[in-house]
C-alpha cells in the first residue's frame, strides 16, 4: 500500500489532492501543513512519495526537497512539486535541487494521477 505524503498549507488544495490520490487503488494519504510538519511525518512512518507545494509558512517546499535529498533515509523518495509558480526558472530550480517532477497549479487531476503512478512504479 503506497503512502503518499501531501505537503500543502492550503486545506482546500490538501483536500483536493487527497481526493485525487485516493483514486489510486490502495493508496494512503498522509497530510502535512508545511515542511517541518512533513519532516515529522517522514520520521514517523514509511513514505513512498512526496507531493509538496513551494510557498508554505515555516518551511517551504524547496527547503524540504533539499533536506529530503540530503538525508540518506529519505533521499530515494520521489518528490513531485505542485505549485502556483509556473515560470521556467522556478521549475529548473526545483528540479536542480532534487525534485523529480514539477506540476504547476491549477492541477489537472489526470496529470497528477499519471505522475504519481509513474513515480510509484519506479
Amino acid at each position, binding site marked *: 500500500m503506497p503512502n503518499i505524503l501531501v505537503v500543502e498549507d492550503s486545506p482546500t488544495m490538501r483536500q483536493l489532492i487527497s481526493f485525487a490520490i485516493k483514486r489510486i487503488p490502495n493508496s494512503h494519504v498522509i497530510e502535512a501543513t508545511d515542511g517541518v510538519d512533513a519532516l515529522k511525518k517522514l520520521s514517523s512512518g514509511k513514505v513512498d512519495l512526496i507531493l509538496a507545494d513551494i510557498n508554505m509558512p515555516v518551511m517551504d517546499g524547496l527547503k524540504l526537497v533539499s533536506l529530503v535529498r540530503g538525508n540518506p533515509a529519505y533521499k530515494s523518495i520521489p518528490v513531485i512539486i505542485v505549485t502556483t509558480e509556473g515560470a521556467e526558472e522556478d521549475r529548473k530550480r526545483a528540479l536542480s535541487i532534487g525534485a523529480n517532477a514539477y506540476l504547476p497549479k*491549477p492541477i489537472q487531476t*489526470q496529470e497528477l494521477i499519471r505522475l504519481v503512478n509513474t513515480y510509484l512504479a519506479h
Partner: protein
Amino acid sequence: MEKETGFVGKAEEFLQMFKKGEEFTKELLKENEKLRYRIAQMEESIQRSADEARIKLYENRIGLLEEELNSLKKRFRQVEEENKDFASKYIEVEEENNNLANLYVASYQLHSTLDFSEVLRIVLEIIINLIGAEKFAVLLIDEKTNELVPVSAEGMAVSEAPKVKIGQGRIGSVAKEGESFFSDDLAAGAAELNPLEPIVCIPLKIKEHVIGVISIYKLLTQKEGFTNVDYELFNLLAGHAATAIFSSKLYTQSERKLTTIQSFLDLLKEKPRK
C-alpha cells in the same frame, strides 16, 4: 502332283487364314489401343470433373469464408468504433468526475466554517488554486455608502483595489446588473494593473441579491484560458461564496453582539454584590 497341288492349296489357304488372323489381331490391338485411349480420356474427364467439383466446392467455401471475413472485419470496425466511443466517454466521465471533485471540495471548504476571515481565506484559496488567478480582489457592498469596498486581495494590496460606486464602471456595473464579465483578452492584465479594469468580474449573489464582486486582474502565467470547470467554479463562487461570506459575516456580528450583551449582563450581575 495332285497331292502336292492340294498341299500347296491348303498351305495357301492356311496362310490366308493366318494373314486374316494377323489382320484381325492387329485390328483387335488397334481397337484395344483405342479403347485404352478412350478409358484414359474418360478417366481424365472424370478426374477433371471431380477436380472441377472440388474447385467449385472450394470456391464456394472461399466465398463463404470471404463473406465471413468481411462481416468479421465490419464487426471489428464497429467494435473499434465502439471502443473509441467508450474511451472518449470514459475520458469525459473522468473529466466530469474531476470537475465534480473540484466543485465538491470548493463548496465543502466554503461551508466548513462560520468565521468571516476564514471564509475569505478559503475564497482566495479557491481562486488561486482551482481557477489559477494571480492578482484579484474581493469587494463587498457597504449598504451604508452603497459602494463596493475591497475586503481581501491576492497579488496586490487590499488598498490597491478600488472602492467603486454601484453602477460605476465595469465593476460597478457587474454589481448592479448581477451578470459576470469576461474580457476577450485574458492576457490584458499581464501588462499593467488597472484596478478598475478587471479581466474577469463575478458578482457574489444570494438569489438575485448581489452582496459583492470578485475582481480578477491577472491569471497565473501557466493559465492560458478558462475551461468548463472554471465557469462552473465561477458559478459556484457566485452563489456559495456569497452565502458563506454573508452568513459568516452575520455570525461574526452576532457573536460580537452576544459577547457585548454577555459582558453587559455580567456587569449588571456583579453590581448588586458591591
